[in-house]
């Protein structure tokens, strides 16, 4: 009886769930892609940047990493509008997670670059590669392979962080679920369903990451 009721309700709200799912994936994908690109520059600046720049970027990374994502989400939605930058809730939310992602990716890349043996750079230089070429063809590919497992982890964290956008009214999966529950009061069932969908998203990311890792293995 209760199962059929749940299935019935789930079927009725399939559109809202689907929209929430799409929104969650869109927020996460955007934030991960933008955050990774920005993070690569952050990492490069942390390692090779001109001293004052390195200091500023270090400040950025430590500040962002030391702040709860929830606070970042609220800040980019409420504080930016105070200083005259009007973002939609969606834009503000993506911005917050992007910034969060970039500080993590930056720190990962810094660590990976620092861990590469100095002999790699020397070998590249002795065959006449310029610094830029050495970075692009020798150091960066090694560092990216190195950070891949941690990066996949971070990507799943971004998906989880996207739930926080529900508080600023972005109709992602969690908010959609809460709205459904407010109509039918099947909180246990629908939270479980949402949890399951998040699990499927993150699990897919992890499998995809493993697959890429195997593809890129050196041996």
């Amino acid at each position, binding site marked *: 009886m209760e199962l059929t009721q749940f299935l019935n309700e789930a079927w009725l709200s399939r559109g809202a769930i689907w929209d929430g799912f799409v929104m969650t994936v869109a927020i996460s994908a955007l934030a991960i892609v933008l955050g990774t690109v920005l993070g690569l520059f952050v990492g490069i600046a942390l390692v090779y940047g001109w001293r004052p720049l390195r200091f500023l970027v270090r400040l950025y990374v430590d500040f962002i990493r030391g702040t709860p994502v929830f606070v970042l989400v609220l800040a980019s939605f409420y504080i930016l509008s105070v200083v005259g930058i009007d973002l939609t809730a969606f834009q503000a939310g993506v911005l917050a997670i992007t910034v969060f992602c970039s500080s993590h990716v930056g720190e990962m890349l810094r660590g990976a670059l620092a861990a590469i043996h100095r002999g790699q750079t*020397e070998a590249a230089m*002795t065959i006449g590669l310029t610094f830029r*070429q050495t970075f692009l063809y020798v150091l960066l*590919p090694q560092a990216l392979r190195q950070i891949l497992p941690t990066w996949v982890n971070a990507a799943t964290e971004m998906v989880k962080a996207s739930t926080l956008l529900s508080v600023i009214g972005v109709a992602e999966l969690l908010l959609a679920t809460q709205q459904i529950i407010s109509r039918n009061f099947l909180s246990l069932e629908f939270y479980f369903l949402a949890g399951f969908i998040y699990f499927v998203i993150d699990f897919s990311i992890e499998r995809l990451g493993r697959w890429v890792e195997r593809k890129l293995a050196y041996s």
Partner: protein
Amino acid sequence: MAEHLLVIENLHKTFGATEVLRGVDLNVDSGDVVSIIGSSGSGKTTLLRCVNMLEDYHEGRVLIDGEEIGYTRHDGKRVRLPNSTIARQRALTGMAFQTFNLFPHLTALKNVTLGLVKVRGLAKDEAVGIARRWLDRVGMLDRQDHYPSQLSGGQQQRVAIARAIAMNPKLMLFDEVTSALDPELVNEVLNVIRDLARDGMTMLLVTHEMRFAYDVSTTVIFMHEGRIHEAGPPSEVFIRPRTPRLAEFIQNSSFRA
């Protein structure tokens, strides 16, 4: 006047308060095989690394084919050349390292073609042709698609030598290339170098393989406390050392005539 291929004049280098090179002068002609021997800390490796600017130096000059490496002079003051110029100059020499330093993310073949394509600007096919020829020469052609982690130390070192030589350097620098190898792998690498020496490749090598240095060198240099303490043909340096310090060094080494 015939110019020397490599000229090192009055080279000085300090690390902090330690003066590692205290005025080194050396001429190397085309086809010479010059071995540098000496105890650790005598400045052998540093000397080698100044030739291709892996180390900056503080005084003196290094010239390859008459071109000053690393620095230029403005109103009597030494100015370091821009990095792009130094990168080009580094390609005049090739270097093999104690720790091989192959690129782990690239196959043996791609380790060799990288410089050919990116530095010498060759088309991919041409680069592959040259790389395969050199891999064949060092006996590694059948492993061209292996990654470094799939190769033994000796094999990695042979690929590393091919990578350096494929760039067609005027001078090869070998920095203790067998020191990190298991004893049974040393010979396969030494044979490759011996073969290149017979072919007329000019080389400067830092080595602890005394017998090899004796066999292969045209000149042997004994370094001591940052200077060339004694130099000469191997028959003299190893058999009739003139200074007590060299005699002691040879005595304590594994060298037996």
